[in-house]
Every structure is written in structure tokens, then in C-alpha cells.
């Protein structure tokens, strides 16, 4: 019985949150990797673009709530996703037309591109602050839990409860749907193949008659979907605060690089690698161990390797270690 309790504790506090957090990172990481593969630059505006899309979801959620539009037990925010995606894509295309395309035509080096994206990041941050402000917002409504700790305890008679928040389940399901559709598109359709060809060998792609403008357009459309959905899922699960989104750029970049930058499947798995590493290293194992050892040997300390305040240090360390030992990442992306 103690053993099962130990497993339940671990599942409740690490496995489920890490799966949800990993999915959110994965969407961001695929966004980073896609922009890197096709448009050939590291997009430092990633976090704030995700924030930009989420901002519309938050505002529209408030609006829909005020006019009484909702999805019952599901969060109203799900209803806002298509609108938020459209706003996000329009913003990205606008930025591309007035900022990035100039440097693309000039064939600027990637470093210059990255600096330009830093500029875009600041501008995006400013726009977000003007429109919605920097404060913390919760926009989750509907049923909060699928499985409550007390219900689980009653059902099983265990000491420990297992909770499954609806946002966690929604995150995992929506991520799997979006990512499956995206991989199907990239690998099985003619347009997807042409995008991979353009990413692999731009000159030859042009000689084969692939239209670069169309490839760029479709890349931004997919990027807009990934950024918005990733941002909304994160905001539903935790809360929407622009500064946190900016901070999330570190684990997202770490995920993209761990998976092999330029490789979407690598980025997908990289998201989970980073999420599990962050959560497993910063989790306090006291209760878990207490179930496994005899009563008198219970640990006094929290049994925590690192305080949760340092969770970004975990992704940063992984980032540095991967760049030192295997710069191409797990799945052999492009060497940076």
C-alpha cells in the first residue's frame, strides 16, 4: 500500500504536471525550430509572440463571458483560439513584411536576424503592455478538475490523492492533435515536402520552381497556430502574465536545441525532456521517500535537489551541456 501511495504522490506532483508543461514547451519549441529551419534565424521574440496571441484569447474570453457565450464545462478560451490565431498570424505577417523580409532579401547573416528579432521582441512587449498591461490574469472558467484529490481518495482508499486538472488534460489532448496534424502536413503533403526541401537546400528548391514567398507565408501561418495554442494552453494551466511568457523563452530554446534545432520531432520530444528535468530536479521528494523507507528513517529535510526558484537554471544547464557535448542535439538537427 505504501508503495502505491509513493507512486501516486510522484504521479500527482511530477508526471502529470510535467506532461502538461512539456506539451506547452513542445509547441513553443516546434515554433522556434520551424522558424530556424525555414527562415534561418533564432527568433528571440518567441515568448512575446506567444504572449501576443494569448492576449487576444484573454480579451476575447472576457468579451465572450460578458455576452454570455461559453462552452459549458470547457473553458471559454477554447472558443477564442481561432480568432486569436488569426490575429497572431496577421501580426506575424505584418512584422515579416515590414521587418524581416527586408533582411531576408538582403540575405543578412543569421546573427543580424537574431538581433532584429530582439527588436521585434521589445516592440511586441510594448504593444502588449499598452493593450492589456503587465499584470497577472486568470481567464480559466468551466470545470476546473476532472479528478479531484478527495474523490480519488474515496475511490481507492489511499492516503494520497491524485488530481487531474481539466487544463492539464486539455493541454495534452490539444497538443497531440495539433502536433499530429502538423507532422502529417509536413511529411505527407506536397506543400509540406516543399517546405522541408526549402529548409534543406534553398537554392535547389528555387531551381525546382518552389515559390519562396509561399513557403514563408505558410511557415508563419503554422508558427502562428503553434505560438497561439501553446500560449493559451500555458495561460489556462497557470495564468497569463506577459513577463512569465518572456521568461519561458529559455526553456523553449533549450527544448528546441536539445531536440536538435531545425528538427520538429526533436523539438517536440525536447519539450518533454526539459519539462521533466525541471520538475524532477526541483521536486521535494520527502513524502515520496517517507512511504518507501521504514518509519524511523523518514528524512528530515525536504529532499529537494534545487529550489523551484532555480528551475530556469536547470534548463540553462541542460542547454549549456548539450551545446558542449552534442551541439546537434538528440536528433541531429543543424549544428549551430
Amino acid at each position: 500500500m505504501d508503495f502505491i501511495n509513493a507512486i501516486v504522490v510522484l504521479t500527482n506532483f511530477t508526471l502529470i504536471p510535467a506532461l502538461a508543461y512539456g506539451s506547452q514547451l513542445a509547441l513553443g519549441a516546434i515554433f522556434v525550430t520551424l522558424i530556424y529551419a525555414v527562415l534561418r534565424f533564432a527568433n528571440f521574440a518567441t515568448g512575446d509572440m506567444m504572449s501576443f496571441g494569448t492576449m487576444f484569447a484573454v480579451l476575447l474570453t472576457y468579451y465572450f463571458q460578458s455576452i454570455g457565450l461559453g462552452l459549458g464545462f470547457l473553458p471559454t478560451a477554447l472558443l477564442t483560439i481561432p480568432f486569436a490565431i488569426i490575429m497572431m498570424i496577421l501580426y506575424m505577417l505584418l512584422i515579416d513584411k515590414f521587418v524581416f523580409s527586408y533582411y531576408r532579401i538582403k540575405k543578412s547573416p543569421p546573427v543580424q536576424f537574431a538581433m532584429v528579432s530582439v527588436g521585434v521582441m521589445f516592440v511586441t512587449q510594448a504593444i502588449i503592455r499598452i493593450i492589456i498591461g503587465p499584470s497577472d490574469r486568470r481567464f480559466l472558467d468551466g470545470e476546473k478538475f476532472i479528478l479531484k484529490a478527495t474523490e480519488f481518495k474515496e475511490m481507492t482508499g489511499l492516503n494520497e490523492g491524485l488530481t487531474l486538472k481539466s487544463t492539464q488534460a486539455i493541454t495534452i489532448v490539444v497538443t497531440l492533435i495539433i502536433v499530429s496534424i502538423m507532422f502529417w502536413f509536413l511529411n505527407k503533403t506536397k506543400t509540406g515536402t516543399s517546405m522541408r526541401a526549402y529548409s534543406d537546400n534553398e537554392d535547389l528548391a528555387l531551381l525546382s520552381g518552389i515559390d519562396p514567398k509561399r513557403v514563408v507565408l505558410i511557415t508563419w501561418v503554422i508558427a502562428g497556430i503553434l505560438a497561439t495554442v501553446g500560449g493559451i494552453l500555458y495561460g489556462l494551466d497557470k495564468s497569463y502574465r506577459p513577463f512569465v511568457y518572456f521568461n519561458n523563452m529559455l526553456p523553449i530554446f533549450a527544448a528546441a536545441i536539445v531536440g536538435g534545432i531545425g528538427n520538429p520531432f526533436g523539438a517536440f520530444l525536447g519539450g518533454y525532456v526539459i519539462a521533466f528535468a525541471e520538475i524532477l530536479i526541483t521536486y521535494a521528494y520527502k513524502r515520496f521517500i517517507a512511504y518507501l523507507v521504514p518509519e524511523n528513517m523518514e528524512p528530515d529535510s525536504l529532499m529537494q535537489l534545487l529550489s523551484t526558484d532555480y528551475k530556469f537554471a536547470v534548463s540553462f544547464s541542460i542547454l549549456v551541456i548539450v551545446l558542449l557535448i552534442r551541439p546537434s542535439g538528440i536528433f541531429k538537427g543543424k549544428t549551430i
Partner: protein
Amino acid sequence: MAFFEGTQMTAGYGDGPDIISSCSISANRGEIVAILGPNGAGKSTAMKAMLGLLNLKSGSVTLDGKDISKISPQDRVKQGISFVPQTKNVFAELTVKENLEIGGFLREEGLDKMIENIYNLFPILSEKKSQIVGQLSGGQRQQVALGRALMSEPSVLMLDEPTAGVSPIVMDELFEHIIKVKKTNVAIIMVEQNAKQALSISDRGYVLVTGQNKFEGSGDELLNDPEVRRSFLGG
């Protein structure tokens, strides 16, 4: 007038000096034309000028009697000119079949049938169709490169050193493939370092020196010309 013709072409890179001056090259359908010459003679440049990868300062390029000097390389590709660069001439991260599909990107119809034709021409590609091209051998990659270029059913095929970096046995095999392609009524222009072997399969050849036509003639004529032999073919 030849089917595909560059007349009195003068061109260079950017504002730099002229690499080729008053250089003329032509090819008819069903003909293999070799461009030879020492390093830095402007062989590849002449070919790139005909493809439109660099702008002509003077001279013209015509295809089937139509002046195409002013149109972009992409549009020339649509007109039926296909180009196999010397390096990076395949999509290394894609499978063989995907490479061919991209080669036929502009085709409205008959994609599968054309892929079958390519498999018949290069049987090894049919065996390896699901393999990533980056994992193939040098000779097989060159076949993928040729196959990709042929997918658009071009009337002109330009090859920039198709046998660079492959073994002599593979080179012979590639030349055999190039002859097979020629028989499908395609005009082939190739730049080659292996002058003797290239001339032995070519109908005509041009020898460029410092960007100008120095010698031209049929393959045999050039092979037997004492001056050409002494200067370029090693005696």
C-alpha cells in the same frame, strides 16, 4: 540557329571584372555538348550565365528562337531548362522519392508516371526510393540529382561537373546514364574536368580560356587536335 544558344555573352559577378567575354555556346536537342578548359576559364560562369544566375553585360541567350536573356532563373526553369549544380545538388534530408517529387513540383499532372520513367532510367533509385538521400553513395546521389532535374521533363539539361568526386567506375556509369538521357531528345550541356572521357561521349565540345572561346569542334576533332591535346588533355 541552335535550339539553345548563348551568343557573345559577357558577364561577371557583381561589379567585379568580366569572367567571360564574348563567349558563345550552343546546343541542339539530342546532343551532348562539353565545356572544357583550365581552372578559372569561366566554364561554370558561362553555364550560370545561360541559366540566368548572373546578369549578362552584353550578348543574349535564346531558347527555341525566343530571347530569354531578361527572365529570371526560375522562369527559365519553367521554360524547360534544368540545372544540376556541382555541389548541394540534392535535398539530402529528403527521401529519394521526395527529391523526385520536388523535381516535378511544377507539374500539374503525370507526376507518378514521370517518377516511374525516372526509375526505369535509374533502376537503383527505385530500390532506394524510401531512403534518405544523405545516406546514399556519391554515385547514387548524382543519379538522384539527375533524376530530380529530369522530373520537369526539360528540353535542356545543364550539368556542372557531374562526375566531380566520384570514382572512375562510377564516372563511366554516370556517363552511360547521361547518354541515356540524351536519347530522350534532351539538349545536354556539361562542364567537365575529366576532359578526355567527357569528349568521348560528347557530340561537340568547347574549350574556353580566360573566358573566351579558344577551340570548338566535334568530340573527335578536339580529341585529335594536337594543340588541344598538348594544352588540355595531357599529351
